[in-house]
């Protein structure tokens, strides 16, 4: 079985070429009004928009809807308790999600999975694009959190 790139790269001289990448900070960082970093990702029980996994009874039984992971320290300061319904707001929009208070995220960071159209993480995320590859900046933006009255 051949191994890719073991002998040569598909470049004129056959070598791999390293590129210098200059660090650019995220397009939007926390401030007084939007004090947390929001990052988005997956739950182990669902796949992407959940078009299949949310219709699979056993997986749906595990995680039935959107949630936001909050560090206990942040939760304490914000008066958020586990399973509270909270609103998350960014400069783009607002969603509701159940708070999951956990050490899995560090203080200052909120995590929202993107499987749930009814608690849609990408209402919040920043459409800023990477200038080179045009990848959307879905992993960092500034967000605020309030307990739903």
């Amino acid at each position, binding site marked *: 079985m051949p191994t890719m790139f073991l002998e040569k790269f598909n470049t004129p001289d056959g070598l791999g070429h390293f590129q210098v990448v200059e660090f650019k900070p995220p397009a939007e960082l926390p401030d007084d009004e939007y004090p947390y970093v929001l990052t988005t990702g997956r739950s182990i029980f669902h796949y992407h928009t959940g078009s299949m996994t949310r219709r699979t009874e056993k997986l749906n039984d*595990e995680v*039935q809807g959107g949630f936001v992971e909050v560090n206990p320290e942040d939760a304490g300061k914000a008066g958020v308790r586990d399973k509270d319904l909270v609103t998350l707001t960014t400069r783009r929009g607002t969603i509701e999600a159940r708070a999951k208070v956990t050490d899995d995220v560090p203080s200052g960071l909120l995590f929202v999975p993107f499987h749930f159209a009814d608690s849609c993480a990408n209402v919040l995320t920043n459409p800023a694009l990477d200038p080179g590859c045009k990848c959307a900046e879905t992993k960092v933006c500034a967000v605020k959190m309030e307990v739903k009255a």
Partner: protein
Amino acid sequence: VAGPSALEDKRVDAVVAVKAREGNRYDGIPVVITDPKELIETAGSLHCGSPNIARFLKEYLEGATNTKIAVVARPCDAKAIIELAKRNQVKLGNLLVIGLNCTGTLSPARAKALFKDVFEVDPADVVSEDIEGNELIIRLKDGSEKKKNLAELEEKGLGRRENCRRCETNIPVMADIACGKWGTKDKNSTFIEVCSDKGSDLVDMAIKAGAITTETPTADAIETREKKDKAAVELAQKWQEKDFATLEEMDNNERFGYWSGQFSHCVKCYGCRDACPICYCQECILEADRGFVAPGEVPPNMLFPMMRITHVMDSCVNCGQCQDACTMDIPIARLIFLLSKKIGDIFNYEPGMDITKMPPLRTVTDQELSQEGIEVSF
């Protein structure tokens, strides 16, 4: 063959055996055979795999509730069938259990790696494996043989599946007949130990039909058979001591730390539950909608493995299916078998051996539980 086979005269409706999928000896799968002509496809031993025969019977063939089935079974398969029968999941009366002697199987991937890296052969060229004395012998397409010292391989973590190494049951006397080479003179004959009236009828019928010819084993043959069995049992006991020693040397705190560390790797895939031949509840209490184990949490609460263990440990037949299925390599079979042994010692119970004896935790009385000196610790 002059007379009808058990299939032809409707003594059984189907035969469950194992065959190589598309000729791949590393992919042995259980098959249901109703055409006697197809039986020959299941001839020969497939050591590099571990089909889950008991679970297959229960899951896909209604536990033989409505069909008469002849089933080939290694000792662990036969034992699991018996434990399932005690839980009313298999109808033993409809089964003819053809036991096959077994001194162990290898996992397919590890077997292939072993043949390639240690025996230095193409795994596709291997046509049979054998354990003879202290040697693991493989035979190749070109007729040649290669052998390695099994103990040396296993010291390095190669060789048989962990549960097989510590298995003391080589001859499945709990089946209706037990077939194997120990005590035979040549490769074309099989030593048949008749273990039940049903087994006796089958052998008589096979003789009458002209399918087999038999001769009475000599005293020497029986002695050889016993010696080989004894040697294999002693080797298994050594592995048990070794496998269990590391667990038992720990004090309770260390043990708790060790196992909670192991279980913290659990990804809640339910693989161990779904592979266990003893687990049978249709509505499992560990499901996310049952309100017992919190949904959406990985690793699940320790209740998850604990509940699994306590539900099956008195019937554990050391088949190793749970550990094979574990995607996180948690040595769960080692723990369940260790506990099974301890319970067996207390209640004088050996799973899978005697259909008339019920699993002790199903029949234990309050008085027994409060007896002094009874302590089951994890």
